């Protein structure tokens, strides 16, 4: 049984540590495995580590490794491989360096036991174990691939052209940008849940072509289906759209730190420092209309900066109703009875209907009297401009965020955290620098709190602060839309990784 699968993106490098990109990582997930894995519902399940223990002081983690696991080349898996991988993932050229706490020491106890010694406690360290995969030490050494391939290298390492993991599939052939063929790993340790003999993966960048390929039956699975084509696919005889909520939250942010906005006609002051202006913006946006018209119902409006799946108390928050008149009044109160002009940055090839959402926002703000000059640009230029490397060169922007750890702390720290301390990476992605002391103190406590209930309450408090301050305007979680042939059964995980080891295909 051959499953043909097409994705917008590509499996770019076979070295699992060089490129941090969902599609690439998902493909690696067929071949490689981490210490843990995520189940169909994203819960953490044992992977190459069968179980782990945390010492009293929280500074030492002991890992018990799975026995009788073999790499594709037949080498046995053991503690050396884990320690090798933990070192390699932190080496120069790896883009996953932060997935292993810096300064942690990995010590071999015996062939199947490893101790991790931390500098400070980290109760959620295992949340990221599934994102860095274990490689074979002997294979890497034999093939001169001990270090990850740095991009500046003139010759690529063996590991970026070949794969040797412990996962359920092996790579049979790989032509970047053209075709990758996977074959099942007969010796896999786990329980086989698929019925495939072969996976043929092709990247198809053009939306229309990808949909056409699904409709004409040339491929069995496509990801993503553009929202406007969902109906067309569903009404076709041979395929349907498998939709579901995604973890990424799309939101709007303001520059709240400069004394004068970079792109505005308001001079000498920054309107976004005024909470009333932020509230006015919030109220001017009618998220339900965006959902029905722009997202064609395929989105979940959100009051929080995190997806409800990732935070149990999300339901306690409710988005304020859209209210144009209220917005106008707030603006007038803040001293802008005739509104003002501001520039908005928006990517146009990054998120689902990103530019259309921005346009809708522009229209809605226009009705509240604010003239927004939209600058939609390809992601390459957008990120170069708005991120730290571009000096946060923006006044008002749209961004999407998935916490890499699937945990609220990541959001509170990276996005909502104050970026005032130059020695800390806190708030590096807080492009507009929303800043609240109390919020940050809570964040620090959350990191070391191991009591789940207490921790959740603290998270809720922190989110409440952002919510009350209108620090951000969360919009929605976009929906996943996979096009699946009627012959195929797939498991859709909310992190948008298309994992075919749960796929079943009827001939």
């Amino acid at each position, binding site marked *: 049984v051959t499953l043909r699968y097409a994705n917008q993106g590509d499996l770019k490098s076979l070295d699992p540590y060089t490129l*941090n990109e969902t599609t690439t990582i998902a493909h690696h997930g067929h071949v490689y495995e981490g210490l843990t894995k995520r189940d169909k519902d994203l819960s953490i399940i044992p992977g190459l580590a069968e179980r782990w223990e945390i010492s009293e002081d929280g500074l030492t983690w002991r890992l018990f490794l799975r026995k009788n696991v073999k790499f594709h080349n037949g080498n046995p898996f053991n503690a050396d491989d884990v320690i090798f991988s933990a070192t390699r993932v932190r080496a120069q050229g790896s883009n996953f360096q932060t997935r292993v706490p810096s300064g942690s020491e990995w010590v071999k106890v015996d062939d199947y036991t490893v101790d991790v010694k931390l500098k400070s406690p980290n109760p959620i360290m295992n949340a990221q174990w599934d994102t860095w995969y274990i490689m074979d030490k002997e294979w890497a050494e034999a093939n001169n691939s001990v270090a990850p391939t740095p991009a500046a290298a003139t010759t690529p390492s063996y590991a970026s052209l070949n794969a040797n993991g412990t996962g359920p599939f092996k790579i049979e052939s790989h032509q970047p*940008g053209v075709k990758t063929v996977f074959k099942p790993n007969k010796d896999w340790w786990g329980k086989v849940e698929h019925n495939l003999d072969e996976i043929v993966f092709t990247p198809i960048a053009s939306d229309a072509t990808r949909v056409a390929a699904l409709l004409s039956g040339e491929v069995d699975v496509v990801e993503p289906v553009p929202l406007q084509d969902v109906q067309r696919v569903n009404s076709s005889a041979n395929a349907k759209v498998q939709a579901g909520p995604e973890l990424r939250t799309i939101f709007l942010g303001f520059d709240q730190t400069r004394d004068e906005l970079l792109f505005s006609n308001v001079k000498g002051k920054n309107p976004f420092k005024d909470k009333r202006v932020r509230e006015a913006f919030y109220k001017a946006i009618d998220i339900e209309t965006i959902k029905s018209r722009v997202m064609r119902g395929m989105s979940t409006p959100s009051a929080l900066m995190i997806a409800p799946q990732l935070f149990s108390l999300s339901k306690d928050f409710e988005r304020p109703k859209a209210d144009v008149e209220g917005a106008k009044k707030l603006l007038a109160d803040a001293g802008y009875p005739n509104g003002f002009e501001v520039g908005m940055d928006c990517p146009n090839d990054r998120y689902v209907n990103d530019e259309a959402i921005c346009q809708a926002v522009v229209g809605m703000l226009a009705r509240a009297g604010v003239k927004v000059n939209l600058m939609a640009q390809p992601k390459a230029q957008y*990120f170069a401009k708005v991120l730290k490397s571009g000096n946060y060169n923006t006044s008002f922007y749209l961004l999407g965020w998935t916490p890499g750890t699937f945990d609220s702390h990541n959001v509170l720290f990276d996005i909502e955290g104050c970026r005032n301390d130059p020695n800390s990476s806190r708030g590096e992605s807080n492009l507009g620098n929303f800043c609240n002391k109390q919020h940050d103190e809570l964040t620090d406590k959350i990191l070391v709190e191991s009591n789940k209930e207490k921790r959740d309450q603290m998270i809720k408090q922190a989110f409440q602060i952002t919510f009350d301050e209108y620090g951000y305007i969360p919009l929605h979680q976009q929906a996943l839309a996979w096009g699946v042939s009627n012959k195929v059964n797939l498991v859709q995980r909310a992190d948008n990784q298309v994992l075919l080891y749960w796929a079943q295909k009827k001939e």
Partner: protein
Amino acid sequence: MFAFVIRRALQAIGVLLAVGIISFAMFRFAGDPVNQIVSLDTPAAEREQVRRSLGLDDPVPVQFARYLSRAVQGEFGVSYQFRQPVSDLLAERMPATLELAFCATLFAIGFGVLMGVYSGLKRDSFLAKVFQTISLIGISLPTFLIGILLIYLFSVILGWLPSFGRGDTVRLGWWSTGLLTTSGLKALIMPSITLGLFQMTLIMRIVRAEMLEVLRTDYIKFARARGLSTRAIHFGHALKNTLVPVITIVGLQFGSVIAFAIITETVFQWPGMGLLFVQAVQNVDIPIMAAYLMLVALIFVLINLAVDILYTIVDPRLRTSIRQPA
């Protein structure tokens, strides 16, 4: 002839250098490659490290000089995205693009010349007007729209032709060809038409105009006065004389064939250099962009050379002037 080749080679080097300088001057505006390599939540320190390891913290002239010195040794660097040598990637993609460009040009020349000759000979006939109007579709709808419409019709509705890719390919040495398998040939049809339509229109119009011109020359009149058959006059004498401008245009337009191949390859997921380039632009993959631009420049220089040689084959008057432009 030897001097001619040497002079052309020197010119080519000049052109390549200029292309390289211009490209490098522009790359730093294409975006920040680091963002494409790391994920959004990667801390700044780690980003800096990536940047340094890519050599992106050096001034542009230094980057260019380094690139040049490596390129001279045949090293074109490693793609940021794929971590593969750019030369391998391009070598793998080039056959696809060249085959596509070749078939498109063939299609364009074949139909363009036929329709052009016909409408030049029968300027006022109904069919000639139909040709002229219909061929304009080739330049009145954007390439991508034509591509999608073809896919919709022939793949989705009729199911006759594949909507994407190259079909099965056969390796001949390092060259992978789709010309030897049925599926490969089928896969070529729609992209070739999409890409060739514009050129076809152009060629048709030139041939027509030239035919009108040539048919009124004295030597055609003299050929008729000699009682030669209509066929010999039209296809032997007239057509051959229209070829010089056609060759010029085909040569001049080859650059745009390669450029529009970017669109066609995107629409049809044709695994060629254009697609690679578009993705490189999106991901600020500088080594690929640089090598692609240089390669296109090189191809262009070669095409120019071929055009000049073709001229002399077609037109004996140019033979002496190539060897000694007075």
